[in-house]
C-alpha cells in the first residue's frame, strides 16, 4: 500500500495570533510552528494502516519555505518513510487552486493508493486543498473522516464522517483521497530513536521546474482569490454581573433576556 500525506506547517494552536502592522499578514515574531494538527491525524492513520497490513510506504509532502523541512522531519521521526519538500519562490501568494495543482503534479509521480489531507489547515481554516486535489486527480474523496477501515481486498475502504445529527458511512474504492478530522486516531509522539533515524531518511527538495509547472501559472499574480486585510476579532466587553441572591439574579437575567436581548 502506497500512502501519501500532505502536510502544512502552521503556527502552534496555543499561539497568540495578531495581525502585522500593515494588516496583510500575521505578526510572526516569536511564533512556534508545528505540523497542522489535522494533518497529524493523516500521518498517524497512514502508520496504522502500514502496521496493520505489514507493508507499505508512507510519503509526506509539503509546499513551503525552508522552515517547512522541520515539519517534514517531524513526520519522518514518527515513522513516515520519505519526504518531499516543494519549495519555489514563485509560489509566494499562491491560492488553493495553485497549491493543489502543484501537489497533484508531485502526487501523480507516486502511484498512490491513499492520499491523506487535514480537513483544514488551522491557519487559513479553508478546507479546500484536499478536495481540489481529489478533483484534479479524478479520484473519489471522503472529507472530514473520523474513522477509516481498509477492507481486506485492499481495493475498498469504509469511512465515517460526522454530519449534523448523525454519522455517514461511506464506501469508497481505492485509490482515494481522505481529509482527516479529530477522533480518527491519537497521533503518536516521536521517540528518540525515531528522531535519530529520521535524519537518515530521504527528504527530496523539488522546484516547480522539477514538477514541470510554469512559474507564471502560480503565485500571487495568478491567484483567483487573495487575502486583503487581517484584523483582530471584534472585542466583547464584559457586562455587569447581576446582583442579589440567586432568585433575584435569575429573575433579573430573565427580564434582560426578554426586554433587552429579546431572545426569550
Amino acid at each position, binding site marked *: 500500500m502506497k500512502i501519501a500525506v500532505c502536510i502544512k506547517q502552521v503556527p502552534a*494552536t496555543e499561539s*497568540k*495570533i495578531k*495581525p502585522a502592522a500593515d494588516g496583510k499578514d*500575521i505578526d510572526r515574531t516569536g511564533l512556534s510552528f508545528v505540523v497542522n*494538527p489535522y494533518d497529524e491525524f493523516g500521518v498517524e492513520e497512514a502508520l496504522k494502516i502500514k502496521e496493520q497490513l505489514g507493508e507499505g510506504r508512507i510519503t509526506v509532502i509539503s509546499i513551503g519555505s525552508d522552515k517547512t523541512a522541520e515539519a517534514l522531519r517531524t513526520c519522518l521521526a514518527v515513522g513516515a518513510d520519505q519526504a518531499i519538500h516543494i519549495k519555489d519562490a514563485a509560489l509566494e501568494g499562491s491560492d*488553493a*487552486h495553485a497549491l*493543489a495543482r502543484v501537489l497533484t503534479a508531485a502526487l501523480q509521480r507516486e502511484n498512490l493508493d491513499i492520499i491523506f489531507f487535514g480537513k483544514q489547515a488551522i*491557519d487559513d*481554516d*479553508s*478546507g*479546500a486543498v484536499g*478536495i481540489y486535489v481529489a478533483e*484534479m486527480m479524478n479520484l*473519489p*474523496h471522503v*472529507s*472530514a473522516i473520523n474513522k477509516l477501515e481498509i477492507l481486506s481486498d485492499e481495493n475498498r475502504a469504509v469511512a465515517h*464522517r*460526522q*454530519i*449534523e*445529527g*448523525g*454519522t*455517514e*458511512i*461511506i*464506501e*469508497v*474504492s481505492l485509490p*482515494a483521497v481522505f481529509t482527516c478530522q479529530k477522533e480518527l486516531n491519537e497521533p503518536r509522539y516521536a521517540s528518540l530513536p525515531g528522531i535519530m533515524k529520521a535524519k537518515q531518511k530521504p527528504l527530496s527538495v523539488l522546484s516547480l521546474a522539477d514538477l514541470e509547472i510554469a512559474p507564471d501559472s502560480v503565485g500571487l499574480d495568478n*491567484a*483567483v*482569490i487573495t*487575502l*486583503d*486585510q*487581517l*484584523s*483582530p*476579532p*471584534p472585542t*466583547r466587553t*464584559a*457586562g455587569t*454581573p*447581576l446582583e442579589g441572591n*440567586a432568585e433575584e*439574579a*435569575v*429573575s433579573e*437575567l*430573565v427580564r434582560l*433576556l426578554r426586554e433587552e*436581548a429579546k*431572545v*426569550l
Partner: protein
Amino acid sequence: MGHILVFAEQRDGKLKRVALEALGAARQLAADAQVLAILIGEHTAALTQTLTARGADKVYLIDDAGFSHYSSEGYGRAVADIAKKEEATLILMGATALGKDLGPKVAAKLGGPFAGDCIALETDSEGKITATRPMYGGKIISTVKCRTATYQVATLRPNVFPVNDPDDTKESLVENIAPLPDLSSVKAVIKEVLASANTKVELTEADIIVSGGRGLKAPENFSIIEALADALGAAVGASRAAVDAGWKPHSYQVGLTGKTVSPSLYIACGVSGAIQHQAGMSSSKYIVAINKDPNAPIFKIANYGIVGDLFEIVPLLTEAVKKIKNE
C-alpha cells in the same frame, strides 16, 4: 452582478435554515440580477414553494431516489452544470458538513475562487466578491477578495445572514433538471446514515445553546443542562474538559477543536471560558455566564453574568423559563 445560484440544502425533506439565510444573502447582493436555487434530493418538490417565497426567482430541482443521499461527485456535478448553464457569478451554500464538502468540490470543478465559512459578503460594481471570514480559529478576521466575477463560491456560517420575510404571492418557477447527472461513475457512496441518539437540536444550527463544563462535576449532572435546554428549545454543548472526561461525545464540543457556533444566545454553565473555548462561541449574539468564580475569563465576554453555584442557579433559571413559556 450576474446570477447568483444558491444550493438549498435539505435533509429528510426539511430545508436547512442556512439555505434560507443564503437566499437572504443572495437577495441582498443580487440587486436586479436573478437569484436561482438548486434543490437536490428525494421527495423535495414540496419545498420549492418555500424557496420561491424566501427569494428564489427560479428553482432547479432534482427529486430522485438516486439523489436521496449526498455524494460529492453527483451533487457537485449537478451544481457545477447549472452554474455553467446560468453563468453564475456567485454560488452560495451553508457552511454545514455537506456545504464544507460541496463548496470546494464545485470550486474545483469550475476553477473559481472559494471562500469558506463567510460572515459577511460584499460585491463591487463588476460583481467581484469581498468576503469576511474568520481564520486562525477565530483569532483573526480576514477579508479576502475574489479577482474574477465568474463562479465565485462561498459557504456561509449558519445563523449570521438574515432570512427574507416570506412572499407567498410570488409565482414559483421550477425546472426539473434533465437529464440527471450520471451517477454510475461515483466511487464514494453513502451506505448508511446513523442518526445520533442525542441531538434534538443540532449545535451549529441552534438559535440557543446551553453548554456545560467541568463545573458540572459528573456526567449525570448534565441533566441539569439538558433540562434548561429542553425548556428553551435549545441545543446542548460542552467544553473540552467535559468531553475529555467522557461526559459527552466530541460532537458536543464547542471551541477551537470542536464546533464553531453563533447562536442568538449562548449560556455557559461551569465553563471557565478558556481562549480555545471562546474561539468557538465568541461570535454568539448574547452570552450568559454562570460560574462561581468571579474571575473566570468567561465573564469578560459575557453580556450577563451570574456569579454563583450552577447547581442552584440553573434549575431556578429552568423554572423561570418554563413559567414564561406557559404564559
